[in-house]
């Protein structure tokens, strides 16, 4: 029972990590908290859902469409939206992204109604028998795909010139500007990458979850908890934090019951914020 819960937690944890990765990257470089993160994830889920419903595109194949589209959306949104409107104040950005999430959530409610939507994949109920536990194929695919994307992102950040530029801007934006890096462009690219992570996460979440206009809210608290736990701006932290939260959730559900089991997440969030707000792997905020 316990191993099954831990394995299940790991599966979800990888996707949580991907959601949190976008958030932590945006925070690490732009020093802004994107409150519209959940709403953007909801948008990605709907995109994958409609691609499946209208064009019969498998959600996992849709990653190749939704991820680049999300990148472009994120880039445009930051460059000509959030960046311009916020005038650089921390709380302004928090509130503007909050306004954005209100708009997106209610636009989804307006156009798609409040009904929960799910997809039925032909292989949706096939499961791998490990002897002591069944793991459904969608969960396994999502798990490894999430890990792969995390690895790609790490490679992008540490091996390419773009990654180097992003890290430079994160560390010292004036200095980066002086050596000729287009800081505004890098900001928008980072925001785009963060939203692209959500695009991928949405596609992988769809087969094992549902979507409605409020799905994002569920993940906002989870993603913030992971980011705070792992340390704002830390990729490794986000990955490990994702696993910890995934396991906490499923093991908590096992011991405390479905309803009370969710308490672990907000509890961890509060405790970490109060006792170690820089997180386990974070540098000084």
């Amino acid at each position, binding site marked *: 029972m316990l191993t099954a819960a831990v394995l299940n937690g790991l599966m979800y944890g990888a996707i949580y990590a991907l959601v949190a990765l976008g958030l932590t990257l945006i925070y690490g470089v732009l020093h802004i908290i994107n409150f519209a993160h959940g709403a953007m994830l909801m948008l990605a889920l709907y995109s994958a859902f409609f691609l499946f419903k209208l064009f019969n595109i498998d959600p996992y194949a849709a990653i190749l469409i939704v991820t680049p589209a999300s990148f472009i959306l994120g880039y445009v949104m930051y460059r000509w939206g959030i960046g311009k409107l916020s005038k650089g104040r921390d709380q*302004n950005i928090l509130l503007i992204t909050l306004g954005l999430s209100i708009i997106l959530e*209610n636009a989804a409610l*307006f156009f798609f109604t409040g009904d929960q939507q799910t997809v039925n994949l032909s292989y949706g109920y096939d499961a791998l028998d490990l002897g002591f536990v069944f793991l459904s194929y969608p969960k396994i695919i999502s798990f490894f795909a999430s890990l792969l994307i995390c690895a790609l992102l790490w490679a992008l950040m540490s091996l390419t010139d773009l990654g180097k530029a992003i890290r430079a801007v994160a560390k010292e934006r004036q200095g980066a500007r002086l050596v000729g890096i287009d800081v505004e462009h890098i900001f928008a690219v980072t925001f785009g990458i963060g939203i692209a992570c959500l695009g991928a996460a949405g596609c992988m979440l769809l087969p094992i979850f549902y979507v409605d206009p409020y799905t994002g809210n569920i993940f906002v608290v989870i993603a*913030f908890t992971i980011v705070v736990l792992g340390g704002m701006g830390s990729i490794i932290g986000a990955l490990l934090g994702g696993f910890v939260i995934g396991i906490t959730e499923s093991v908590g559900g096992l011991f405390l019951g479905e309803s009370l089991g969710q308490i672990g997440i907000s509890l961890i969030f509060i405790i970490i914020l109060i006792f170690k707000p820089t997180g386990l792997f974070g540098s000084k905020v």
Partner: protein
Amino acid sequence: MTVIGKLKLPKAANGKSAGRKSMIFLLIAAVVTLVAPTFITNKFYLDVLTLIFFTAYIGQSWNILGGYAGQFSFGGVMFFGTGAYTSTILLTTFGIPPIIGIFAAVAAGAILGLIVGYMSFRAGLRGSYFALITLAFAELLRVLANSVEFTGGGVGLFLTYAPSLKNLQFDTPTGFYYFSLILLAISIAVAIWLERSRFGAQLAAIRENEDAAEALGIDTLRCKIYAIMIMGAMGGAAGTFYAQKYLYLDPPIAYSIALSVEMLLVTIVGGMGTVFGPLVGAFVLHMVNEITRNFIDTPGLSMIVYGVILIFIISYLPNGLMGLFRKRQDVLGGSLETTKNELESKDA
């Protein structure tokens, strides 16, 4: 230096005559709202007014901590929900009438404020971190309320309909209208007191520059905790009002993120740190609501409009709609703000 300069400005700008003018305005407003039910024969409008007053009241509770003390909370609903459960459980389990229960709800809200405020402010949480931890506290309470026995769990609590003053239930909309009017009047009195008292000035100092306030000898921790306790007390009473009006309570209603958002929305749109900002914002919110409903009756549209208004206000009217009435201060406050922003962006 900026702190002292900014604090003295409103007094110099307002002067004595402005104070008298607003007193006269308040008096007129009081008379008009008191006699309004005798002229408004359509009960629907009375109900809308009641909702506006209620939203303005809960917005004002957010304004105490968010507007006057500059500490934004994203989980303000926790006081509302806790107050609602307190008076409702006292009624359903112990038979204590809500007219007494509402004071218990106020106390419960204040105590919750003390706990949350002490824990998060002592840990030095500011800005976005404080906003997020209040969100987490509200979520925590929602999960708890959903899981324990005495709140009725996910099934919720049903209140019996027995209109009487003792039960704070009324068989006409007029009763609830006056109930909400009393709450609103109290909240406006609290805001006016903040604008004139030493405590209010201390909160303003914390809002403008916490480190400087600390250096001036202000006990910032104590002040912020008092502010969140006032917010909690006000939120608690709002919970009782809601429970007695709608006669049903469950965790998603009691700790809804939507209400947390609504209270900060109306305050920011109306004008943070102003006496009438929340009321103006609440009025605009419900007008938008009614107008959009007349055009297309699909849920979501009014909130889309409101989200756009919010973003517009934050970007172009940081002092909210009230800022339009106070041009003079607006200019001065704005310029100080920009200097501060420039300094901050240089630090970053």
